[in-house]
């Protein structure tokens, strides 16, 4: 039984979300932009020394076993998890209900659960030029060896905080503050114009 946890989320991108091909696409579309609209997004933080218990709780709730290492993560296409700081993790699920599910297993002695389902907007950029477009935005290494599939990174674009998870060889999911999402989306569209992009 899935009970509705919160009001229907409205996309902040709506006025600027134009399905179709745009920019310089005569020679092909090299970027696909979408909004993944997860049903729930949570952040978990472990108290010092409780990290392993929190990682076990993530496995219990999502079935995902986090790989070791800073920024490690994975996605099964429905649920995604990645580390973004020592002992801190972002988890997204197509379904609602992550926060109450975690609240049951992440006891106050282990750490904290923060429901960000309405606080973040998830934007997916995919295609052969995804790395190239993102490199215009963020001063981090997007190459596959430095940023493997599943891994997460915390960084900023002109003071707009962004968490980025690589969910495919040429696919990235970017979590931005909902209130900044529309301007970030517009910037991403502009940056994709020169290689041709499609909004789906």
């Amino acid at each position: 039984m899935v009970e509705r946890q919160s009001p229907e989320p409205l996309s902040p991108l709506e006025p600027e979300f134009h399905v179709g091909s745009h920019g310089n696409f005569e020679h092909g579309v090299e970027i696909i932009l979408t909004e993944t609209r997860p049903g729930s997004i949570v952040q978990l933080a472990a108290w010092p020394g409780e990290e392993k218990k929190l990682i076990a709780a993530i496995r219990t709730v999502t079935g995902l076993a986090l790989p070791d290492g800073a920024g490690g993560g994975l996605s099964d296409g429905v649920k995604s998890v990645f580390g973004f700081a020592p002992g801190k993790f972002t988890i997204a699920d197509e379904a609602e209900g992550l926060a109450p599910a975690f609240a049951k297993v992440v006891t106050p002695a282990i750490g904290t659960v923060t429901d960000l389902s309405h606080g973040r907007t998830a934007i997916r950029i995919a295609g052969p030029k995804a790395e190239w477009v993102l490199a215009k935005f963020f001063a981090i290494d997007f190459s596959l060896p430095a940023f493997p599939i599943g891994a997460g990174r915390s960084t900023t674009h002109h003071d707009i905080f962004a968490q980025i998870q690589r969910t495919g060889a040429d696919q990235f999911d970017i979590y931005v503050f909902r209130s900044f999402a529309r301007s970030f989306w517009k910037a991403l569209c502009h940056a994709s114009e020169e290689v041709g992009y499609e909004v789906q």
Partner: protein
Amino acid sequence: MLITCPYCGPRDVIEFTYQGDGNRERPDPASQNFEAWNAYVYDRLNPAGDHNEIWQHSGGCRTHLRVVRNTLTHEISSVAFVRGDHQGRGDHGSAARRKAEDKS
């Protein structure tokens, strides 16, 4: 200037916020030792060379870091978490990152 965050790896200085001189020792809040408070608030080493500093990776993982920076060259000789709890443990913290960097 790049600072190599123990969690995030090398990042541009614009992602970091300077949090002040890392040599200061804050007296006990109940202390009435005015000389100690005066030293905490005003005394600075101002070295021409290696300097202990506190930085926050505010545009990244948001941890606070102890950084040793050369004030003449901006060369950074060490970066560590202020809170030592996460150091040296294979718990999704610094250990794996450091290992990866030692190899490169």
